[in-house]
């Protein structure tokens, strides 16, 4: 490898040619502040917070975009550097609302942290401030352009990673804004509601629509029977909201905390994930055996659903008709569970704790009322639940773990792995294999579909039929597979697509920061959960079996179709 030697703050450092000064400094343990920089995604050199002195150069250099050179002498902490950084920050702050105390990102804001780090105590040039209305037009995402520092990280993630292109710079100069075309509301453009833009926003300019107040109100209402379901990924992430390191599994602690918050029943979306596998697995077998539309594509990621509705409406018949586990759970909570427990469904309030902003959109879809009521009443992201737990003063790490309630709290390892990319596929294969071959699957680990590679492929021999599958996560990767399907070049029977990079553990409602290193640790936690379960195949879930016996009949039966399956809406790419 071609190595370059340079000096950073007096330390000799050797790095490959082409490395940036910022990366070299990181390798040397020198922390250079950044703001607009987002590794691999937004490397634009626009904010100039990361400037350093390079001996011999006429001006300060933006370290995030400047490559190292042989013999370079770099200083990251001189009076000129500190002065330049302070000036940059003061300029940003001179057009920024001072609302930290009431801001959703208070305590977790990169701008606030830098202002603190550089000891900004007053801002010399308080100029005229541009003011823009907040965009609360969607059920999932709130945009507050007044807090936007024009770093373009949201737009880069939306266009490069998700290939949605919902956001772009509008206008020039003082009144410019990173926004949907025509300064339009987000609800008027093709947006997946995935929240990946929120995850990368350094400030409070992008955030989730907050539903904590509705949930507190329901919890305080004695007439309401408030049940909560926890998505597979949340147990592997919500710990981060409460000061625990990434990758900490908090399953039992989470159950105990939810009980402490006052939920009447603590149930598990993992149960509904097992049920999804029963329905979706049988749907796949049915399509293969009866010449149905193949490849069949998973339908449990609502950001993905909205994406295909906007960008590939002609491929909608490929989607499984299964609702997502969140919605299956809601529909059953207000029918099966209501009947079984003798509670009027009108009094049941279903709360979901989800890794995802798009789930907020999904819950509000008009077709999600098959119980006769809104199947899910409120959706909290991991971040919002974190806020509620902190508000109640519960120490999530220290609380004594408890078990989920019966019946809808029983699940298998197959349900748990829904939280990571490849998990739905693996869970489906575990069940489909046994249903089709009638033989026991001894090794349940399908390693080929695990991990952070963008598109993964595998094939499984099912009693003579070679079933080919593919997995994609992140909408840019999904697009690659869809373009193949469109051209008739996708030789697969079954495709799993997750909207968010890494799957739900990287969902737009997850703790900030979320990056690849953190994603990998969360994924480890998910598979640890799976390995720790006694049952690891969805069809072995005893409550799912009981549910079919007592209520649903059989997979894909009449009742299933009524409650557990859905339809999709072709949407435009432009004005909606």
């Amino acid at each position: 490898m071609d190595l370059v030697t340079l000096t950073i703050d007096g330390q000799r450092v050797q790095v490959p040619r082409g490395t940036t000064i910022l990366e070299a400094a990181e390798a040397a343990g020198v922390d250079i502040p950044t703001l607009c920089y987002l590794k691999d995604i937004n490397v634009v050199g626009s904010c100039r917070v990361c400037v350093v002195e390079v001996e011999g150069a006429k001006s300060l250099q933006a370290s995030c975009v400047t490559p190292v050179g042989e013999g370079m002498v770099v200083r990251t902490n001189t009076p000129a550097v500190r002065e330049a950084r302070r000036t940059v920050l003061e300029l940003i702050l001179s057009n920024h609302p001072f609302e930290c105390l009431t801001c959703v990102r208070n305590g977790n804001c990169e701008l606030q942290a830098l202002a603190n780090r550089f000891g900004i105590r007053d801002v010399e040039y308080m100029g005229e401030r541009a003011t823009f209305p907040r965009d609360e037009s969607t059920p999932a995402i709130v945009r507050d352009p007044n807090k936007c520092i024009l770093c373009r990280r949201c737009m880069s993630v939306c266009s490069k990673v998700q290939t949605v292109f919902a956001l772009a710079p509008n206008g020039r100069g003082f009144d410019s804004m990173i926004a949907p075309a025509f300064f339009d509301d987000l609800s008027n453009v093709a947006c997946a509601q995935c929240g990946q833009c929120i995850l990368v926003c350094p400030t409070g300019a992008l955030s989730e629509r907050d539903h904590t107040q509705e949930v507190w109100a329901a919890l305080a209402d004695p007439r309401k029977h408030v049940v909560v379901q926890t998505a597979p990924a949340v147990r592997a992430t919500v710990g981060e909201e409460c000061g625990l390191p990434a990758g900490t599994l908090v399953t039992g602690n989470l159950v105990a905390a939810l009980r402490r918050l006052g939920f009447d029943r603590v149930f598990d979306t993992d149960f509904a994930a097992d049920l999804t596998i029963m329905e979706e697995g049988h749907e796949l077998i049915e399509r293969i055996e009866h010449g149905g539309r193949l490849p069949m594509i998973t339908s449990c990621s609502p950001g993905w659903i909205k994406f295909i509705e906007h960008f590939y409406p002609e491929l909608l018949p490929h989607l499984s008709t299964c609702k997502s586990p969140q919605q299956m759970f809601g529909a059953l909570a207000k029918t099966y569970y209501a009947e079984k427990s003798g509670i009027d469904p009108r009094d049941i309030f279903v709360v979901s704790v989800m890794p995802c902003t798009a789930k907020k959109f999904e819950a509000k879809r008009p077709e999600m009322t098959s119980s006769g009521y809104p199947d899910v009443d409120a959706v909290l992201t991991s971040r919002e639940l974190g806020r509620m737990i902190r508000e109640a003063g519960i120490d999530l790490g220290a609380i004594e773990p408890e078990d989920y309630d019966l019946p809808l709290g029983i699940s298998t390892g197959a349900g748990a792995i829904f939280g990571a990319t490849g998990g739905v596929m693996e869970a489906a294969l575990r069940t489909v294999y046994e249903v089709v071959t009638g033989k026991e699957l001894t090794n349940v680990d399908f390693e080929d579909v695990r991990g952070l590679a963008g598109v993964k492929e595998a094939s499984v021999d099912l009693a003579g039929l070679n079933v080919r599958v593919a997995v994609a996560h992140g909408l840019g990767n999904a697009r690659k597979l869809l373009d193949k399907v469109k051209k008739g070049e996708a030789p697969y029977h079954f495709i799993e697509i997750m909207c968010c990079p890494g799957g739900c553990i990287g969902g737009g409602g997850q703790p900030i920061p979320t990056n690849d290193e953190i994603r990998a640790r969360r994924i480890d936690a998910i598979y640890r959960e799976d390995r720790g379960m006694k049952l690891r195949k969805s069809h072995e879930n005893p409550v799912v079996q009981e549910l079919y016996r007592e209520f649903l009949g059989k997979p894909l039966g009449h009742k299933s179709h009524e409650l557990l399956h859905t339809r999709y809406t072709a949407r435009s790419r432009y004005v909606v």
Partner: protein
Amino acid sequence: MRMACEECRCSAEITQDKWEKLDEIIAKYKGRPGALIQVLHEAQELIGYLPREAQVRVAEGLDIPLSEVYSVVTFYALFSLKPKGRHQINVCKGTACYVRGADRILEKLEDTLGITEGDTTSDGRFSIEVVRCMGACGLGPVIRVDDDIYARLKPDRVPEILKKYD
């Protein structure tokens, strides 16, 4: 400040004939480097400005996200999002005119017509635009309506001037 609600979203008067021409322009440049700017340029010459529908058509035709099209349209001053009025009022705000009270003339125009600089009256009669020096510095403040120059202007003459144009 421009806001979504003020922007023209109504169906512009783009005739069938113009739609066809627009499609030809798109086809001509599709796949070529710099196609977007070229197409927008010719589209504006064809229609007079760049209404939302035209931008959507360009986005679709060139297979470029609408957000990018709009971004380019609003970045370059030469592109216009609004139809021009039948009469174009240019107000000089070069240094000389500015010093001699161009601001008060502009204010009077805006008050009288009920629009701000950059806009067109709802009856399509006038548009106001601020320009840099028109080269008549000795005569400031100066405005031009279509081809007529009005020099050494006082705000109270504004209504009388506007009456000449319908």
